[in-house]
């Protein structure tokens, strides 16, 4: 390969490589952003419509000073755990996150306990 050929090949690879990688990943950035926003909008719409039904029902009933109901809690979860989870949610997301509606145990994870321990071990910071 002559010097000219080397320079030509280098410029072609550098420009093509960086431009294509950036174009593909910028395209993915906007695509992911777009569908994320769309899904959030759809989900918030459906949540609002669900929330409006009990609100309308509540408005039609003579309300007396009833204390705010706590989250629906799965049997076996103690009040201390509920308080700790609620505090953690409030600390992370603030008041804007609303209130905790329900607390239940997550379904059995697909990963075994040992697998989970391995994952935590390998992703734990130094």
């Amino acid at each position, binding site marked *: *390969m002559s010097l000219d050929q*080397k320079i030509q*090949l*280098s410029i*072609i*690879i*550098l420009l*093509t*490589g*960086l431009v*294509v*990688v*950036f*174009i*593909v*990943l*910028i*395209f*993915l*950035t*906007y*695509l*992911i*952003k777009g*569908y*994320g926003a769309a*899904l*959030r909008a759809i*989900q918030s719409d459906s949540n609002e419509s669900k929330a409006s039904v009990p609100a309308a029902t509540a408005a039609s009933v003579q309300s007396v000073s009833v204390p705010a109901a706590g989250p629906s809690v799965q049997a076996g979860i103690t009040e201390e755990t509920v308080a700790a989870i609620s505090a953690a949610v409030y600390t*992370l*997301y603030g008041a804007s996150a609303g209130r905790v509606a329900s607390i239940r145990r997550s379904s059995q994870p*697909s*990963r*075994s306990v040992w*697998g989970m321990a391995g*994952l935590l071990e*390998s*992703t734990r*910071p*130094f």
Partner: protein
Amino acid sequence: MNILNEFLQSIQGIFQTSGFFLNDWRNYIMIGIACVLMYLAIKKQFEPLLLLPIAFGMLLVNLFPAIMVPPQTTMQLVSDYMTAHGGAAGNYPIVLLNGQQYYQVTQVGGLFYYLYQGVKLGIYPPLIFLGIGAMTDFGPLISNPKSFLLGAAAQLGIFTTFIGAVFLGFSGKQAGSIGIIGGADGPTAIFVTSKLAPELLGPIAVAAYSYMALVPIIQPPIMKALTTKKERGIVMEQLRPVSKLEKILFPIIVTVVVSLLLPDACPLIGMLMLGNLFRESGVVGRISNTAQNELMNIITIFLGVTVGATATGSVFLSLQTIEIIILGLLAFSFGTAGGVLFGKLMCWTSHGKVNPLIGSAGVSAVPMAARVAQKVGQEENPGNFLLMHAMGPNVAGVIGSAVAAGVLISILG
């Protein structure tokens, strides 16, 4: 006397077929290197899952080179064959040469020759990607898609190193294979090299995995040199939670987009995203577990030992290998610098909301590079947790390096 002669001849025959007689000094140097790599893997725990099988494969092939030889066909006179086998006919094709009948006797290849076909035919790296996909949570990337840009910027090392390799006298295909070391992604490096320059597979794989293990040593000085104390101390906002639907759609969308735009990246990206879909869909738990555990481990063993077995003395001990190792270091360094500099740009455009350190994680090397960003950030501000923010560019780097691989194969292949 006759018995003594036969005995001595037998001993001589055994010696002449032993490693002491057949191996040359380069094999012994390679055995030494293999032992050093095993020490690093076991004692220092440098990427032991890969470095250990690679080192042992290297040891075996230099002790017994025939373990890697391809199948060979020899011609044997039919009459000679039958005499040697008590008059029994052989089950081989017969060829007529100079009026005499010969058997085409096929001798099977070495064990590693057959296992190596998975590397040569580009089968193992996509299967490793399947396992990686099943283990990876793309949540941090989905919640902050701008991380993709950092993953793209960190591929700078691949293309700048390509230039260096070309000017050092490597061919275009070889330079592309050397450059991909900068992607800091072992399976991608092996995939590209097996397609473009299989003759360099040994040195490139060893360099790629060694540098991945050395990420905590290579990256911090570059990260510190390119950032100010104030930038390193930036605390980033909490990432938003990502819904399950978003996580399920992500692998499908990425596969469709990348495969349509860059078909050469399809085997890697497609398998990566298939693994991730197994994980996120939640309906194939057994398959997901198999992909991230048993399958991944089996392929890792095969890939490791056979890649190590390509590092024979005659191939590995050359000036080329030293050049590849130096270029690999440059590739890693340029990739890190590219990510950090783009992180600085994002920091500036976002008015200080992005910590530039997370850009360094764009070189892949999951999750080591993200952990390095976390560690360097915490040195400035012990209350700063960058790990999840760095995981975004980190997994974007995997996609970015697969895309870069597709570009190289497309242009040079």
